[in-house]
């Protein structure tokens, strides 16, 4: 009887049902317009302004600003910082995810919370922490002076504080991924006689490579772009301890706008490359997940 009443439904009923499952066309249009105008005002205009201001005096002035000695020194320091920081935090992320995802131990949730801690600390406070540790009046200050070592207002301070602010990126990407994958495949490899390293390189690494890349991309973007924390420990010595974001600030405060926006435009390009790489990795992950799903169906 129920089946009969289902098939005998009048047509107007189903169109009414469809109406109840989506919004009228004008509401849809209005919502899409609101979302796009919001993004235009808050995201796209600032981005466009960076490139427009950088090229305001023409491409010659733009290139000249980028070729300056201090600008090149800032670019070198930013690259150096990223080259040191990213591998360390990537290695840490892999080690932490291996321990957390493949083994059971007490205090696991506490450990995960502690790894996330740097995200809860304001960049400026992160800088302050390292000044309190290594500054003149700091914990290790007197010892550093007596050994003629300089951390604050020098490159080691910049590297340390960048390690701190980008600390969780790779780990927080890998931990949930490896937890979801479990330890069965690795277990099988070990039982079949593979050693620890071989198991990691042949079984684990191929499974996590996209997640790892994703974390590295985000970690690198933050390492190159960090401003507040680095600003506190750098001392703003031109040509020596200015990273690219700090050099942007110095130029801007000297009213050298074309040069400031020229260096800023390089960082904006880095951001766009980061977004593109991120989208690619996301697309790739979905793709491999789908392939794996289909493969499982076929076997």
């Amino acid at each position, binding site marked *: 009887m129920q089946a009969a009443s289902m098939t005998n439904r009048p047509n107007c009923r189903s169109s009414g049902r469809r109406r109840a499952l989506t919004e009228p066309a004008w509401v849809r249009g209005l919502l899409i317009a609101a979302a796009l105008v919001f993004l235009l005002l808050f995201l796209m205009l600032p981005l466009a*302004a960076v490139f427009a201001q950088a090229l305001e005096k023409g491409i010659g002035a733009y290139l000249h600003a980028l070729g300056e000695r201090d600008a090149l020194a800032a670019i070198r320091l930013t690259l150096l910082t990223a080259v040191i920081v990213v591998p360390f935090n990537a290695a840490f992320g892999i080690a932490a995810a291996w321990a957390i995802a493949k083994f059971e131990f007490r205090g696991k949730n506490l450990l995960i919370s502690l790894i996330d801690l740097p995200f809860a600390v304001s960049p400026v406070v992160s800088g302050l922490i390292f000044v309190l540790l290594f500054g003149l009046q700091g914990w290790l200050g007197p010892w550093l002076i007596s050994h003629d070592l300089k951390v604050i207002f020098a490159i080691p301070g910049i590297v340390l504080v960048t390690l701190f602010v980008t600390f969780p990126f790779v780990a927080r990407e890998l931990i949930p991924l490896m937890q979801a994958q479990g330890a069965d495949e690795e277990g099988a490899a070990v039982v079949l006689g593979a050693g620890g390293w071989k198991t990691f390189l042949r079984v684990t690494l191929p499974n996590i490579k996209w997640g790892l890349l994703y974390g590295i991309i985000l970690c690198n973007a933050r390492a190159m772009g960090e401003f507040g924390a680095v600003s506190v420990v750098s001392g703003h010595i031109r040509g020596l301890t200015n990273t690219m974001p700090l050099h942007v600030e110095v130029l801007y405060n000297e009213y050298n706008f074309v040069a400031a926006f020229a260096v800023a435009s390089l960082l904006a390009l880095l951001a766009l490359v980061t977004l593109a790489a991120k989208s690619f990795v996301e697309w790739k992950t979905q793709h491999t997940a789908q392939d794996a799903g289909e493969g499982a169906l076929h076997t």
Partner: protein
Amino acid sequence: MIGLIRRHSVLPGFAPAMGFTVLYLSLVVLIPLAALAWKAASLDWPQFWRIATSPRVLSSYRLSFGASLAGAMTNALFGVILAWVLVRYRFPFQRLVDALVDLPFALPTAVAGISLPALYASTGWIGRWLEPLGLPVAFTPLGVWIALTFVGLPFVVRTVQPVLADLDAEIEEAAASLGAGRWQTIRRVLFPAILPALLTGFALSFARALGEYGSVVFISGNMPMRTEIAPLLIVTKLEQYDYTGATAIALVMLAASFLILFAINGLQWWSRRHEVRSHG
């Protein structure tokens, strides 16, 4: 303690992985944070109280908390609209728009910072239209609000989007076939389902805004008592080698962000419990 009890596993490598994890975590995060605790312990409380509640500091908290709240609320509203539009509708350049939402995560804050005066100063692209209307944005709290909305923009979209995408269409169909109008379905069925994610995104956006420095300092003008945010005051005190003053303000801000983090964890626990109950 961590790692003392470990159930048997055939996999090797627990000890080195765990050892490196704990060592590196201690060196990079825990010992430096201990330096802050050590400095805090050496403050005497009347002195701490005097610094943390001086008029200039109080007005910086008011601006920081007020503008962060306004920014997070703006992001809650438009974040839900954006997530909804991205999940439910189809429109040109949708994938591009989706990818662009993450721009504030990728764009260095100093770059966003110097672009805002270029837009909102009296000669800027937008400022030149707003200023004659009696609505100056640059060097006012309004400018701080815009900067803090920018930095917190992705959070609500990225927390609400997956929840909306995973929602079972059957629930909505059931509500509709039971006679609920569209608005009633949204209010009574969809909204409660996304509320925990929305609150989490709101809190994350608020916490991020509270600590933000780089994108704000260029557009705010940094006038004491008027457009000075709390993180800027920390930097100012450090530049004067006033470590004690900087630490006192930092402790207040750190306590606020830990409270928010705690609230987010509570929210997630509550929403998980909620989910279990409604499914079982």
